[in-house]
């Protein structure tokens, strides 16, 4: 009998998926959203936020390393789970089962893949890009506000970003509640408040992210 180690057993894999996902959610997605909101308050606020963030180099690098580890674990385990599940399920010929399975749950591999593509594009758009300098009360700083504004003058970019935020919302709405069930916290099938909160948080976060390119386009 093939004996998987604890972490590669079916429940172990999902614990790793849940943990790496929650780390990215708590340590990256939420702070990132907080930063994005500052964009709405204009160039002064947003550029100053970016400048102060870069002064915290050890923290930024620490989080970047943590994110790299988390995304690697998340993708590796995600692939393993999806492939194993494909193999374990046999195709039915008569399709008409219950509607219990949510669209978000069904699309987890698709939305996950979309998020990966998005991250690459997003890094190319803003992180690995030469930034203009701007005068911030005497010292020079990166004009990230201007960069974001310039990027989203192109409606194609705006549509791309908004579309991919739908994937983020779908992924989160299943992920948040499902990860808790994996940790052993009972999420009931019907009338679960945690399921509802999970969906509301997902919608709120995806819309907050999606509103930035739209506002930048209008400004």
């Amino acid at each position, binding site marked *: *009998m093939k004996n998987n180690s604890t972490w590669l*057993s079916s429940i172990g894999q999902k614990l790793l998926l849940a943990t790496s996902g929650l780390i990215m959610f708590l340590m990256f997605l939420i702070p990132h959203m907080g930063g994005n909101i500052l964009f709405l308050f204009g160039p002064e606020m947003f550029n100053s936020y970016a400048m102060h963030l870069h002064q915290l180099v050890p923290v930024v690098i620490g989080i970047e390393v943590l994110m790299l580890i988390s995304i690697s674990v998340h993708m590796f385990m995600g692939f393993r789970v999806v492939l194993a599940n494909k193999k*374990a399920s046999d195709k039915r010929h*008569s399709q008409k089962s219950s509607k219990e399975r949510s669209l978000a749950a069904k699309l987890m591999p698709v939305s996950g893949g979309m998020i990966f593509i998005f991250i690459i594009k997003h890094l190319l758009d803003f992180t690995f890009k030469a930034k203009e300098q701007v005068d911030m009360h005497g010292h020079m700083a990166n004009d990230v506000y201007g960069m974001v504004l310039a990027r989203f003058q192109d409606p194609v970019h705006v549509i791309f970003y908004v579309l991919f935020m739908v994937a983020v919302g779908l992924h989160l709405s299943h992920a948040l509640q*499902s990860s808790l069930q994996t940790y052993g*916290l009972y999420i009931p*099938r019907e009338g679960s408040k945690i399921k509802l909160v999970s969906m509301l948080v997902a919608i709120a976060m995806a819309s907050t992210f999606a509103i930035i390119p739209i506002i930048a386009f209008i400004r």
Partner: protein
Amino acid sequence: MSNTINLTLKVWRQSKDEEGRFETYQANDVDTDASFLEMLDVVNEELTIKGVEPIAFEHDCREGICGCCGTLVDGKTHGSHERTTLCQLHMRKFKDGETLAIEPFRAHPFKVLKDLIVDRSGLDAIITAGGYVSVKTGNAPEASTTPIKKADAEAAMDAAECIGCGACVAACPNGSAMLFTAAKVSQYALLPQGHPERTERVKNMVNMMDALGFGNCSNEYECAVACPKGIDVKNIARLNREFIKANLKKA
């Protein structure tokens, strides 16, 4: 007074080492008071007279307690989602003139043996891996030496209602046996009698489940809808907790 209905059945026919296919049969004048299996019995009688090999399907108690029967009827395990086994599903649930697709439980570890019969011995192997308790021989112990809270006894009995029919595996988009394994782990984890092997049980049963090629649970809860005994996903959460606890103990 019972009514009769006419149905068109598209039934999965498959012999060993052969690709399966759907064959269409007419089921005429079906008594609406008959159970689904009784309807198949009548169809088989007619097929036998015509010289066609009867449809093979598994059945035993026909009282909804043994876990033998079960096929997908129009994609639904046991033909309905109303907490009933196929043998306890009555033909009054169907409409005159309906066409029903009847196929075996689908999951990679459930090989089709013949027609609607699949090999569910994987579930037995999971039980063998840890679904038991050690008992001392000798006289039956005095019942009140091991008091059990009413709520725990109830929850253990709810889990023990599982008849091991495999509907959860067939309903799962991932072919996972988590609900089955969760029910078996839960019924022992909740009672003091199950505690001596508690740590090893959950590890061994999950290991066996994985080794047999059952899929991973992605918390989509199709299993709980399909379960004829209403086993709740609460048990899956408990299985996850048992697994975490068992592995923390080792560390």
